[in-house]
C-alpha cells in the first residue's frame, strides 16, 4: 500500500510539472499576442486622434485629444497602459456601435460559440464514424459514398448550401426557423447570462424559447457541420488507414478479437491522438466566426462583427476581436494538448 501511495504522489508531481510548463507557455503566448495587437494598432496608418475629434478639429483640440489618449508617452509606457486596460476588461469603445467593445463581444461571441460548437459536434459525430467506415471498406462502395459526400461538402459553396437549406427547410417545408438567433416573440423572455440563448433559456426554464432558439440554430449549424463532416471524414479515414496497417492490429487479430473490437478499440483508440488536433483546429477555425454563414442566416456572430469593423476601420473593435480570437485559440490549443496527453501515454 505504501508503494501505491508513493506512486500516486509521484503522479501528482509529474502532472504538476506538466501544468507549470503549459501555463508558462500560455503566459508567453498571451504576452506575444498582446504585443502583436498593440504594434498593429500603432503601425496602422489610421490616426486614432482623428477618429475621436474628426478631421476638421482645430489644432489645439486635436492636441488635447492626443494628450488625453496618452499618445505623447513613450511606446513601452503606452504598451503597459494597454496591457493594464486589457486585463481590466477595457478594450475601448467601438466607433461603429458606440458601445464598449467588451460588451459587443459579450453578445457577439456566444452567438459564434454556439454555432461553432454545434457545427463541430455534428462534424465529429457524423464525420468520424463515416471516416472509420470508409477506412475499413477502403476502395469499396462505402468508401466511395464517403468520398462523394466529402467532395460535395468540400466543394459546394457554403452560401449556396445555406440558401438552398433556407429555401427547402424554412420556406417550403417549414421544419426550421428562418434567419436570426431567436424569434422576436421570445426575445425578451430570456435574460442573457452566458449569452448562449439555449443555455440561458434552459437555465431559466423557458422551454418554448429554448426550442425556438434551437430551431434557429439547427440549420446554420448543419451547414457548418456539412463542411466539418467532409473534413473530419477525410482526415479520420487517412488516420485509420494508417493505424490499420500497423503490426499491433495484426497482433490483435491473432489474439482472436472480433473485427469490431480490432477497429473500434485498438485502431481507433490510436487514431484519436492525431484526430484530437484536427478537431481542435477545425473548431478554432469555426470560432473565428464564419462570415458567409453568419451573413446568410443573419446571425449576429463574431465573424460578421469583425468584418464590419474591418470595413469601417473600427480599430478598437478589430483589435479587441483579434485579441479574443487569439485567446480562444490559446485556450482550445491548451485543451486539445491536454486531451492528447491523456490519449497518448507516450507524451505524458
Amino acid at each position, binding site marked *: 500500500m505504501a508503494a501505491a501511495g508513493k506512486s500516486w504522489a509521484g503522479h501528482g508531481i509529474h502532472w504538476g510539472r506538466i501544468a507549470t510548463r503549459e501555463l508558462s507557455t500560455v503566459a508567453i503566448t498571451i504576452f506575444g499576442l498582446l504585443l502583436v495587437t498593440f504594434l498593429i494598432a500603432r503601425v496602422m496608418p489610421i490616426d486614432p486622434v482623428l477618429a475621436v475629434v474628426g478631421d476638421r478639429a482645430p489644432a489645439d483640440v486635436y492636441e488635447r485629444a492626443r494628450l488625453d489618449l496618452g499618445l505623447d508617452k513613450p511606446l513601452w509606457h503606452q504598451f503597459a497602459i494597454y496591457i493594464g486596460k486589457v486585463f481590466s476588461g477595457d478594450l475601448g469603445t467601438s466607433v461603429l456601435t458606440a458601445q464598449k467593445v467588451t460588451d459587443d463581444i459579450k453578445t457577439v461571441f456566444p452567438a459564434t460559440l454556439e454555432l461553432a460548437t454545434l457545427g463541430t459536434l455534428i462534424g465529429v459525430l457524423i464525420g468520424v464514424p463515416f471516416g472509420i467506415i470508409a477506412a475499413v471498406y477502403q476502395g469499396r462502395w462505402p468508401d466511395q459514398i464517403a468520398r462523394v459526400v466529402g467532395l460535395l461538402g468540400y466543394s459546394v459553396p457554403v452560401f449556396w448550401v445555406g440558401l438552398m437549406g433556407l429555401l427547402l427547410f424554412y420556406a417550403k417545408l417549414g421544419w426550421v426557423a428562418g434567419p436570426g438567433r431567436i424569434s422576436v416573440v421570445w426575445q425578451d423572455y430570456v435574460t442573457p447570462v452566458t449569452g448562449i440563448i439555449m443555455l440561458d433559456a434552459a437555465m431559466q426554464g423557458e422551454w418554448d424559447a429554448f426550442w425556438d432558439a434551437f430551431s434557429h440554430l439547427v440549420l446554420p449549424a448543419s451547414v457548418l457541420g456539412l463542411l466539418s463532416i467532409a473534413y473530419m471524414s477525410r482526415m479520420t479515414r487517412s488516420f485509420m488507414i494508417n493505424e490499420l496497417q500497423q*503490426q499491433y492490429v495484426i*497482433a490483435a*487479430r491473432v*489474439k482472436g478479437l472480433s473485427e469490431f473490437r480490432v477497429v473500434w478499440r*485498438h485502431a481507433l483508440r*490510436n487514431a484519436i491522438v492525431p484526430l484530437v488536433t484536427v478537431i481542435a483546429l477545425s473548431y478554432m477555425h469555426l470560432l473565428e466566426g464564419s462570415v458567409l454563414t453568419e451573413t446568410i442566416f443573419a446571425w449576429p456572430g463574431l465573424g460578421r462583427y469583425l468584418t464590419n469593423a474591418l470595413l469601417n476601420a473600427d480599430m478598437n473593435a478589430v483589435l479587441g476581436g483579434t485579441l479574443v480570437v487569439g485567446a480562444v485559440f490559446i485556450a482550445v490549443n491548451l485543451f486539445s494538448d491536454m486531451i492528447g496527453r491523456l490519449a497518448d501515454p507516450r507524451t505524458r
Partner: protein
Amino acid sequence: MSDQPLLEVDNLRVNFHTPTGIVRAVRGLSFALGRERLGIVGESGSGKSMTGRAILDLIPHPGEVLADGMRYRGQDLLTMDKRARRKLRGRHISMVMQDPKFSLNPVQTVGQQIAEAYRVHHKASSREAKERSLAMLEAVQIREPARVYELYPHEVSGGMGQRVMIAMMLIAEPDVLIADEPTSALDVTVQLQILKIMDDLVTSRGMGLIFISHDLHLVQSFCDRVIVMYGGKAMETLPAAELADESARARRHPYTLGLLGCLPDLDHPKAELATLKRDPAWLA
C-alpha cells in the same frame, strides 16, 4: 487419435491479384505438424511469413488462399467460416510476431493486452483475467509482474516486450504457435534468452511450434525438422541436425547447400563468401 497431426497443410498456395499480374507468394507447400518444433527457413520473399498468415486466415485483402487440404486436428480449415476461424486464433493457433515495438498496442498497458487475449476466449472476471496474466508474466520470467502489468509498451525494453508478446499469445493456451522471426528485432544477447523461454513453454505444454526464421544457426539448434523454402516452394524437408552434418551433404538440395555456404564460419575462415546461386528449374 493421439498420433493425428495438429496441423496438416496440403499444396498450399497464396496468390495476390495485382493490376500487373498475379504474384504467387506460396506455390504449393505441404507439411504436417505434430507436437514438435518445425523450422521454416528461406530468404526474404520466400513465402515463410505468408505461410503463417495463411494458416491464421490473416492474408490481407487482395490475397487469395488456395489449398488441396488444410486441417487443424482434423477440422477442415478451408470450409470453416470466418467466425470459426477467428475463434481458433489465439485459442488454438497463435503467433508471436517480429518486433514488440510495433506489435504491441502503444496506448494500452501491457497487462490490459494480455488480459484481453485471455478474456476473448474464456469467460472470466477482469480480476481472474488479471491473475492469469500476472501468472503468465511470471511464466515468461518477468521478475516484477505486478509492476510490469501496469507499464505501457514504450516503457519496456525489446526483450521484455517480446516476453510480453509471448505471454499474450500463449495465455489462451493454444496447441500451435507460429513464431514469425521472433528474435530478429532483438539484441543478440537477449535472443537466446527469449528463445529458451519460448522453447520451455512450448515443450512443457506439448505444443507444436512453427519457427519461421532466416537464421540457419537458430533453426538448427532449436528445431526438430526444417523446411527450406525458396520462391514459395519447399526445396526440401530435413531433420535439423542434418543441416550441420557434413556426412549428409550429398543428400542435400543445392539451394540448402547454397544457403549454408553463405554463412561465415569462425573456425574455418574463408577469403571470400560464396554467392547464392539460384536455379529457375527449382520452381518448375
